[in-house]
């Protein structure tokens, strides 16, 4: 991982800010978001680091991170963020950037275990497909 | 369409508040920052002292542009004077534009006592802008 002026000046931040409607630069790295995230232990890049990487234009590290697919949009983090950053919106924007750039979907109905398809409530399936597919 | 006479030298009246912009002009002076001679300054205690009627009068008497300069919002020596200035002159500007006065001819600028260079550059710019517009004929008294 290396920070360069080119990366910091790249378009990624602008694109993420536009799609998410959030000000990435507002984050002052207090990490309160990460401390309360219920699934943080499964993430490779923590929520506060997502914001930091975005501030530094570390596009590859962001777009390859598992975190984008782990965040449950539970909104615990943004409900506590002192700088009014809606973190799941930033994560969602990255997810969209990625799905658009790479095409294809993260989740396909065929990949779901039959047990899940059978038992899970509609609401869960609809949510998942809206999150993971384009 | 205004006609541009050769060698036209505009006359510009500038109202400067005593605490910031007038001091900025003085600093431009002590720092020997050259700017054109077209500007004449009238010293007022605060930009909020500038009555719109002074500006109209200047245009009527043949000024080619008028500048009102005061302290930056929040820095006013009298605390809130320049807020009134800002509000008043947005209205006046619209009115002048409605009467056909080009926006470049009436400008409001915030120049602090330490902004000698800004003062000089504002003078350079406004002079250049008005030069290219040509003389003010819209409001000038028929005399």
């Amino acid at each position: 991982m290396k920070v360069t002026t080119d990366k910091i000046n790249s378009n990624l931040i602008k694109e993420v800010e536009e799609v998410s409607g959030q000000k990435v630069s507002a984050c002052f790295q207090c990490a309160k978001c990460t401390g309360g995230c219920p699934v943080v232990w499964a993430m490779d890049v923590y929520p506060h680091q997502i914001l930091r990487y975005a501030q530094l234009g570390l596009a590859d590290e962001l777009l390859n991170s598992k975190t984008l697919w782990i965040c449950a949009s539970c909104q615990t983090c943004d409900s506590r963020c002192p700088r009014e950053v809606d973190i799941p919106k930033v994560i969602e924007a990255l997810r969209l950037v990625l799905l658009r750039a790479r095409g294809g979907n993260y989740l396909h109905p065929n990949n779901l275990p039959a047990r899940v398809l059978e038992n899970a409530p509609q609401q869960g399936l609809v949510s998942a497909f809206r999150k993971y597919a384009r | 369409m205004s006609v541009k006479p050769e060698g036209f030298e505009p006359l510009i009246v500038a109202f400067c508040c005593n605490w910031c912009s007038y001091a900025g002009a003085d600093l431009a002076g002590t720092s020997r920052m050259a700017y054109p001679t077209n500007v004449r300054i009238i010293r007022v205690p605060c930009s909020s002292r500038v009555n719109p009627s002074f500006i109209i009068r200047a245009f009527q008497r043949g000024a080619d542009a008028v500048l009102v300069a005061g302290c930056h919002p929040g820095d006013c020596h009298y605390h809130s004077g320049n807020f009134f200035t800002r509000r008043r002159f947005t209205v006046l500007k619209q009115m002048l534009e409605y009467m056909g006065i080009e926006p470049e001819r009436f400008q409001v600028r915030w120049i602090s006592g330490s902004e000698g260079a800004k003062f000089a550059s504002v003078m350079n710019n406004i002079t250049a802008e008005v030069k290219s517009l040509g003389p003010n004929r819209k409001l000038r008294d028929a005399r």
Partner: protein
Amino acid sequence: MRYSYYPGCTLKTKAKVFEDTTLQTARALGLEFAEVEEWQCCGALYPLNTEEVFPLLSPVRSLAQARAAGCTKLVTLCAGCYNVFRRTNRTMRSDAEVRGKINGYLEEDYRGQVDVVHYLEILKNDVGFAELAEKVSRRLEGRKIAPYYGCLLLKPRNEMDFDDVENPTIFEDFLRALGANVVEYPYRTECCGSYLSMANEEVAATAVGRILTSAFKNGAEALVVACPLCKYNLEEYQKGFREAAGSPAAGIPVLYFTELLAEALDVREQDGQ
């Protein structure tokens, strides 16, 4: 009082019991729930980006219908629907640009006139918990019940305005009105993993495990929820944790709050389950 009622997909299918007990109890309490006629799926998620407005069409259509039907309140049950409706309505009230787009498309003039409420809010504000307590015929005396709020009822903090995000009390007050013993435990507002259970079961399972362990430790004999997805997750991943925590082998029931309400009001009809 008459309310427009938006059931949502899940209450018509996998969470039938949620709908049944809702309608039974509402009737018993003299509340009239008139189902929105041509409702469609609300989309399950409120869009988290600035570009998508079309997912809002469906909820707005239902809201506009509620208004046309002369109702000032639209009631939802599922926490997911509630979250989508509440936020959509807020957007329609405050965001002129989105409002313009949606109304243009729907040929409506909906500006957020209808209030989106949750059944719990009706019980608290319109019926009143004190009054509710008086109507209870079978108090849930001695039952140790742990309320589980999850996320969507409460968050985002500045948009939902349902209860204090960090220290909500509405579920507890409700349970006390029914005469139950409320189990306090710190994980009642921690996320259950939500839709992660579709794609990433391991993560969801761990999230659920923490909630259950905390509830077990504090003596819970049942959990009560307001969301079919919470219920699914809490039930689906119980086994492993029960064993790990050395808890009773039999599953802990996860109930919709309306099931308890129906029981306490003694109006539960046989629903074939």
